[in-house]
């Protein structure tokens, strides 16, 4: 019997799980798929917003600001990439200044420091690739970029280090409330917990419905499509570039990533389909056209992948955060700026729950987690020591990102370790480079198969069913005639 079950292994759920591990509570995180960071958390803009955008009197605005303040230390504690690169909102017409001033006022009401309206010269000196039609902009030095899947994995790993359990491949299809606890069911499997946190992302409305059939809360996913350009496009922009916001959010963003790529997107498309993570020609073309208004000569021929993610837009304007009743807590409809807000939301939620349980502090709680050290970032001496200690560090598997077998093996054998090809890619980056796994995927599959002791045919790319190999050649005789 668990005290708390957190449903959903995205950045929100894992952040809450980690915060809960600060207390003497027996917690489990329940994830539908075979990995954490497998929904919205793996396909977003990877930006820690400064926080001037969402209105100051909303949860979105408040948690964004609070989250943004926590990020740097959090990423230091968890050994996750974080770079405070600043952001610009560009103005192209005099009209736009009205919006910029509103954003600045809003941000200042929230206590965001350093916001300033800057002129064209300042912008072009910092960002020479911005189109010359720009007339000015809002500069926010506290905006940052991070690694959203690295962070989610780190949160879960650290939560597990501090005693939280992880239950994957557990799609919840029924929740029964007993007197003192809940039965959380997934087919024939059952988890019992006294308290539930609903952090199920785009499925949070369905989880809520399992305990309240009358609930009118509804999530309508909003799709965002992106281009990811090769590292050779690094330097196209140095900071996060927004255009003046319209009715459908912040518009297309051009941003550097912590790994040195350039990310361009998203679209804003309201969907009914919660699996609707396909890209479309229309959507991708829209991104191209929109981004080209802000940045000149974007090298789209350097594109290495396109992808789409779903934001958990709901029928509420704001986040839905709070106890639904005394033992069921919603953290739902966490749309943008959810990634930025996650650390602050998690603090609030865990405090409320600890208070409910009157839980004591976990004296063994360790906030630190250090990740697999990147071989290429080591000094020559460290590299040679590493190889001597473990020759697998001398075997480079991914040529594009220069990742060694040693790093991959280490990323498998950790709490919340990688189990799938994409899981390994998100943790340690083989296959995230320009060849997109053409060379290293077979080797990653071989390593996963060896380390997990399962046949190569059973290794999947992403979710269950995404097998890559269909069997051995020469397995059975085939006889067809010409």
């Amino acid at each position, binding site marked *: 019997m668990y005290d708390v079950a957190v449903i959903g292994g995205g950045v929100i759920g894992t952040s809450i799980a980690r915060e809960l591990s600060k207390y003497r509570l027996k917690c489990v995180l329940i994830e539908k798929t075979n990995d954490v960071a497998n929904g919205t958390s793996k396909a977003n803009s990877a930006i820690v917003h400064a926080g001037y955008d969402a209105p100051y009197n909303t949860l979105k605005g408040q948690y964004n600001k609070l989250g943004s303040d926590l990020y740097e230390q959090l990423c230091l504690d968890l050994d996750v990439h974080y770079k405070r690169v600043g952001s610009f909102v560009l103005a192209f017409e005099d009209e736009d200044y009205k919006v910029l001033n509103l954003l600045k006022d809003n941000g200042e009401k929230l206590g965001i420091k350093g916001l300033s309206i800057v002129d064209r010269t300042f912008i072009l000196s910092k960002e020479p690739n911005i189109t010359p039609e720009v007339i000015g902009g809002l500069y926010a030095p506290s905006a940052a970029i991070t690694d959203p899947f690295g962070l989610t994995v780190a949160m879960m790993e650290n939560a597990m280090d501090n005693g939280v359990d992880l239950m994957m491949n557990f799609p919840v299809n029924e929740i029964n409330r007993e007197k003192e606890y809940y039965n959380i069911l997934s087919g024939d499997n059952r988890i019992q917990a006294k308290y539930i946190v609903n952090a199920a992302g785009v499925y949070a409305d369905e989880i809520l419905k399992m305990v309240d059939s009358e609930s009118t809360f509804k999530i309508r996913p909003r799709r965002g499509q992106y281009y990811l350009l090769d590292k050779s496009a690094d330097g196209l922009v140095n900071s996060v570039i927004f255009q003046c916001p319209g009715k459908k959010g912040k518009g297309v963003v051009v941003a550097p990533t912590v790994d040195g790529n350039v990310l361009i997107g998203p679209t804003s498309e309201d969907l009914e389909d919660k699996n609707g993570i396909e890209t479309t020609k229309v959507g*991708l073309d829209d991104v191209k056209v929109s981004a080209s208004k802000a940045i000149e000569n974007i090298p789209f021929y350097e594109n290495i992948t396109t992808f789409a993610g779903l934001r958990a837009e709901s029928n509420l304007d704001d986040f839905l955060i709070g106890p639904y009743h005394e033992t069921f807590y919603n953290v739902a409809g966490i749309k943008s700026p959810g990634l930025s807000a996650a650390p602050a939301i998690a603090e609030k939620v865990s405090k409320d729950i600890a208070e409910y349980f009157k839980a004591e502090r976990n004296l063994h709680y360790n906030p630190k987690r250090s990740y697999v050290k990147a071989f290429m970032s080591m000094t020559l001496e460290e590299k040679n020591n590493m190889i001597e200690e473990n020759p697998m560090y001398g075997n480079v598997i991914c040529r594009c990102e220069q990742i060694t077998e040693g790093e991959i093996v280490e990323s498998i054998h950790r709490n919340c370790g990688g189990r799938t090809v994409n899981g390994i890619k998100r943790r340690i980056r083989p296959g995230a480079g320009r060849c997109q796994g053409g060379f290293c995927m077979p080797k990653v599959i071989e390593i996963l198969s060896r380390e997990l002791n399962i046949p190569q045919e059973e290794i999947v790319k992403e979710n269950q069913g*995404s097998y890559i190999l269909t069997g051995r050649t020469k397995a059975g005789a085939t006889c067809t005639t010409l």
Partner: protein
Amino acid sequence: MYDIIVIGGGPAGLAAAIEAKKQGIEKILLLERDEELGGILQQCIHNGFGLHVFKEELTGPEYAQRFMNTFHDLNIAYALNTMVMEITPEKEVHIVNDQGYQILKAKAIILAMGCRERTRGAIAIPGKRPSGILTAGTAQRYLNIEGYMVGKEVMILGSGDIGLIMARRMTLEGAHVKGVCELMPHSNGLTRNIVQCLDDFDIPLQLSTTIVDILGEERLTGVVTAQVDEHYNIIKGTEKEISCDTLLLSIGLIPENELSKKAEILLDSKTKGPIVNEQLQTSQEGIFACGNVVHVHDLVDYVTEEAENAGRAAAHYLKDIKKSKKPIEIKPETGVVYTVPQHLDYISDQVKILFRVNSVFKHHQIVIKSDDQILKTIKKNHMAPGEMMHIYLKREELEACESKLSISIGEL
């Protein structure tokens, strides 16, 4: 200090090292990232190699084996499972293998890293992102070396030779290949491959057709094809859903020049490879390049020829053999995409200039001009982007040439 470090143990690296050794260079080291020599040829088990070099038809492994045998007979030093992480303009080579991370020095370097395949991302095919989408080369390695099948019902995008060859291989191994789509109105593969890989097995080739959507949540369940007009725009209403669990991409190769960039070597925006002179020397003195790292070749035989030239040139460079200098820029003009070499530095008895045309030309001529003067013209019945063209220029023609040379395609 090595005389020559060769980077890459495929056909280019092997031939370059062998030729350099034959020219009397002693301290040669060849570096290979894979666990064996031979490069991509080891997975190209089909025949069709060697007609020019050996005057007989060999399979890829046989072609590689012959060079490996010579290479071993000459006792040239090599290291396997060794990745080159960096080359500096000072000709330091950073390598890593299970012995450690070392920085080697060389008087000359020959780049022979080959090329890689373009991926789905490069052409941004919209749709879902299920498993079952692989480059043809990755599938080829699985089938021919690892011994794994990658699918049962197969569609292939791109009619390059690897795609065609894989259509036959997958069929012979028991898969059902439903078709090959090609964006262009003509195939990029050799006609003989269309006959013996597709026609032999009744596999349809759909020209002016591309894939516009990818279906399937986890594993690929189908693709949507559509026809395109002469501007490659999708023709509405021609969309067709085809169920399949595998999509192989054969949509082009790109020279792999990450190391060249680190060595601050100038690259050609068209070939994506280093700019070289007739010695195959790059913009960095003493660093030579050959094979698919320079530009993608049609036949391995031509890679071998180029690599031997690079090996010889590197040897001459080390021996400081004097040649008469005469810089000539070569410009690709109307109808010509690129030339290799891109410029000449020295006069020799004869230079071979390779080039690619930008569309199919029937009964046209190659026009070679020096400044605005026509130097010579060569009639051709047939030229196509898929077939590398070449011309020879003799000493007297080069001597008559000014500082600029252009190659274009003109009507007869």
